[in-house]
């Protein structure tokens, strides 16, 4: 009865438009009124516990990293690098869009930052060349999902923290799946370019030099700073020199020092403004995580997962079949909810079943993050899609055909990874031996 009240109030408030965090607070407040075993002190200590998590400390730091990078013009350098590598391939602007997202994912950790930084440069160029605004916006938004798969990924930190899974393994395990998703998007873009007879771009559209004049050497030079951030983060974690949280702190200081001493970005006001934005973004995500932890505790306390476990036991589902069902559920949830809070609520419910079916925790984590993240490409909860639509001056409704196609390709890749789990596990097995 209490549980029904909690879920009804939570969903009702959510649909009514109450911010997710306050819907969670009120819904979790029901047992405080009607169950004498649940106290305010428990709520306080469970919420405050999250603020002492060294793992979650990485979130505000990686958000700050993303903001600092916006100051350092890395987007231009990464686009140059992608152009140099892509060369004269058909549909080059679309490929550049995807490849730059792959590079950007390795340093930013925030998909919306990816869309904002790259979209404003690439989308207008793609439109000029003949790509439809809808395709350009959808591709930019879809390629931004790679940001949550390739490390550093805030969603993987959240997952690792909830499921007590190695974040290093999740980080390393996400590299190949991220590249696979990127390649699938490039293949789709190639066929789009052939079908719509779109040729190569002329250089001046998105940079200062025509394609013929691009030099791999200059590209490597330009890409050195952004790529070195990725190497510092991943190299440090892999060699065991520091944890993901420490890697985030080191990355912040590294970017800050390069910005000040090498890139000569010394306008204090700019730093103050981006720090303010970073603080607000961190606060909205972290408070959600903290409050959702109590909500999740309430759901566990009322044993919501028991019927799910019994249903899976009774149906004799295999591990891959269960993962496919979970993928579809997460995709649907991701459509309506912010990914971090959705994971906080649903991962603890599904974890016992994952353990019962002996699903590898790294595989479970990466599939969860990928499935839940792709849901955010589709409306109504699609921050990156909304931003891309705004840049391309189109509407999300007009983008729906392309959104469905991109999501379809993405889900197919996910199913492939569920059946061929080595795609995920090969790097963790090589570098971490687990």
């Amino acid at each position, binding site marked *: 009865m209490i549980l029904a009240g909690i879920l009804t109030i939570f969903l009702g*408030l*959510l*649909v*009514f*438009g*109450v*911010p*997710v*965090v*306050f*819907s969670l*607070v*009120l819904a979790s*407040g029901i047992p*405080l009124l009607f169950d004498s075993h649940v106290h*305010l*002190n428990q*709520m*306080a*200590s469970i*919420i*405050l516990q999250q*603020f*002492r998590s*060294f793992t979650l*400390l990485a979130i*505000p*730091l990686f958000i*700050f990293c993303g903001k600092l990078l916006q100051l350092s013009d890395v987007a231009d350098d990464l686009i140059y690098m992608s152009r140099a590598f892509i060369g004269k391939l058909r549909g080059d602007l679309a490929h550049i869009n995807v490849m730059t997202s792959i590079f950007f994912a390795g340093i930013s950790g925030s998909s919306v930052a990816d869309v904002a930084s790259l979209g404003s440069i690439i989308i207008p160029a793609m439109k000029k060349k003949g790509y439809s605004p809808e395709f350009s916006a959808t591709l930019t938004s879809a390629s931004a999902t790679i940001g949550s798969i390739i490390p550093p990924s805030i969603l993987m930190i959240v997952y690792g923290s909830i499921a007590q899974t190695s974040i290093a393994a999740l980080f390393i395990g996400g590299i190949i799946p991220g590249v696979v998703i990127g390649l699938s998007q490039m293949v789709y873009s190639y066929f789009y370019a052939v079908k719509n007879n779109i040729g190569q771009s002329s250089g001046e559209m998105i940079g200062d030099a025509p394609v013929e004049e691009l030099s791999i050497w200059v590209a490597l030079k330009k890409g050195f700073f952004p790529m070195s951030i990725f190497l510092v983060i991943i190299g440090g974690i892999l060699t065991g*020199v*520091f944890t993901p*949280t*420490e890697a*985030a*702190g*080191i990355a*912040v*200081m590294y970017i*800050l020092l390069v910005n000040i001493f090498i890139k000569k970005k010394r306008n204090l006001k700019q730093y*103050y403004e981006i*720090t*303010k934005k*970073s*603080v*607000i*973004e*961190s*606060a*909205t995500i*972290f*408070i*959600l995580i*903290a409050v959702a932890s109590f909500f999740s505790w309430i759901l566990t306390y009322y044993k919501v997962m028991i019927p799910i476990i019994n249903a899976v036991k009774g149906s004799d589902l295999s591990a891959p079949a269960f993962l496919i069902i979970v993928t579809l559920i997460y995709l649907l949830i991701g459509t*309506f*909810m*912010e990914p971090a*809070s959705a994971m906080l609520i649903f991962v603890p419910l599904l974890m016992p079943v994952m353990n019962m079916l002996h699903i590898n925790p790294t595989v479970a984590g990466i599939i969860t993050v990928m499935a839940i993240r792709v849901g955010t490409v589709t409306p*109504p*909860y699609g921050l990156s899609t909304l931003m891309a639509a705004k840049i391309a001056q189109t509407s999300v409704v007009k983008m729906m055909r392309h959104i469905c196609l991109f999501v379809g390709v993405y889900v197919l890749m996910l199913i492939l990874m569920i059946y061929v789990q080595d795609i995920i596990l090969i790097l963790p097995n090589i570098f971490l031996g687990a």
Partner: protein
Amino acid sequence: MNVIDRFESTLYFVLCIFQFMLSFTIFVAVIARYVFGFPLPEVNIVQNFSLVWLIMLGSGIALKEKEHLDIDILGSYLSERANAIRAFLIDVVVLLAIILLLAVGYKSFLAGFSRTELTPIRFLDHRITLVYFNSAFLFGAITMFIYQVINVRKTFKKIKEFQTGGSSK
């Protein structure tokens, strides 16, 4: 500049300091451990302190900026007037949630006096209490309450504007 604006700019300044403290202390701890072979466990206390205050006070400002994540499903189906009423009701519901957070914050503030920090500080002969940490919850909730009362007033005024001859769809 009125009191609320001054409060907000001070708050932003403090939060930015916390953000830098977080990054800097982690960097210093890694350097101290690997370069100088001198671990600094006390840094954990600074990190916990910075993080909890950053998030709790930042959540207050996020309320003012309307940055807390929500799902807008009904917005496009309702008239302007209905949306104004809905915005007011949402603000009232949020205010109720914040009152609950105030109660939780008060409890945690009191609990902070009777609990001590697990990490010892080398130059102190006793462990510090958790008030420094737990009180962030209470003060964060107070900040949220202040901004939310302002939000409720604003949305209430909007409804009144409709009643006194505003247009509706």
